[in-house]
């Protein structure tokens, strides 16, 4: 299954991923439309400014998701094949146990309905909106083997010049 890998050193903090995420989760699917919508569309990806670093944080859709285990109403569920953790707003009671258990702080709050929001991996798209929007390719949507291959290639390209004689 494809994962979203984060190459933190490539993040410049432009927040295009945050904007794209919010727009994708709006009704109008356009930036201008999204701004005036009620409820206001919420982002599910976060770029934190920590010292001189810009670090994007995305839901990991954990193998043994703590948020799913904490959810008493079944609002959070995990697909056994794709491993994607989805949130059903109709069942959410806004108890925030998921926010308390998530080790990465990936749960946000929708003020109007007072319920949780989190990443759904953009089920209606081929490539998640955040990945598509990232100008520096800090976010990579790939299978694990593909990404490892990418990293190996990068490492070799740094090593090999040292061997040139």
């Amino acid at each position, binding site marked *: 299954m494809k994962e979203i890998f984060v190459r*933190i*050193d490539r993040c410049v903090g432009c927040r295009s991923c945050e904007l794209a995420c919010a727009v994708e989760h709006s009704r109008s699917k356009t930036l201008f439309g999204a701004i005036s919508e009620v409820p206001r569309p919420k982002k599910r990806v*976060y770029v*934190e400014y*920590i010292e001189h*670093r810009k*670090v994007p*944080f995305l839901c990991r859709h954990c193998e043994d998701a703590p948020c799913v285990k904490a959810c*008493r*109403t079944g609002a959070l569920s995990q697909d056994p094949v794709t491993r994607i953790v989805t949130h059903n707003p109709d069942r*959410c*009671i*806004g*108890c*925030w*146990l998921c*926010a*308390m258990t*998530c*080790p*990465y*702080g*990936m*749960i*946000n*709050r929708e003020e109007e*309905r*007072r*319920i949780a929001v989190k990443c759904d991996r953009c089920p209606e798209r081929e490539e998640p909106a955040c990945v598509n929007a990232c100008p520096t390719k800090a976010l990579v949507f790939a299978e694990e083997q593909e990404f490892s291959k990418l990293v190996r290639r990068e490492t070799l390209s740094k090593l090999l010049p040292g061997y040139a004689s």
Partner: protein
Amino acid sequence: MQSMASWKIFINPERCIGCHACEMACEQTHGGISNIKVQCAPVFCRHCEVPPCVTVCYRNAIEMRNGKILLIKDLCTNCGICVFACPFGAIMTTTITRQIEPGKKAHSAVPCHFEARSAEEPHTEHEKPKRSLADARDDTPRERQIVLVHKCDGCLERAEASGARPACAATCPSGAIECKDIAQASSLKRIRTYEVHLVTHLTHREGTSP
């Protein structure tokens, strides 16, 4: 606290040391009855924002104020339906002895459209309960065991009066109970994730020291 409605009482179960200080602090600030039960970690009302207990209460005795869910004692009949509705078992029951004022009926101030019957009175609808003159002048103090339904009120009165934290959060020696805003708490977790787990990864890749 910026807006009272936005703070939640977080539980960090991995920090709970099982000392019961929260139970004691709660009962000392709530007339001798604790709204917290410690079982591996403290359990008490989550002040859900779409609360099942509010939905089921047929007397509208549970309401939301300033982001906290409050059980209004004067309207509550202790029926216990909310106890079943709460997914966390956070609404609790305690048997107490209630004093009934002499001359008054057993069930107190709850306004009802039907008369409360005592156990000795006949059950058939046709027979009117017989009351003797002696009953009317009965001044002996009476006691009744009732099962009181109670739950955490987020120490809202304390917070509204003086900005004080809930007693449990204030007393917890290990920081297992804390008052935080959800958005801020999540942001802090992300920063902590970076500081503990990601910064070394980055510096190894770049060959720089933190």
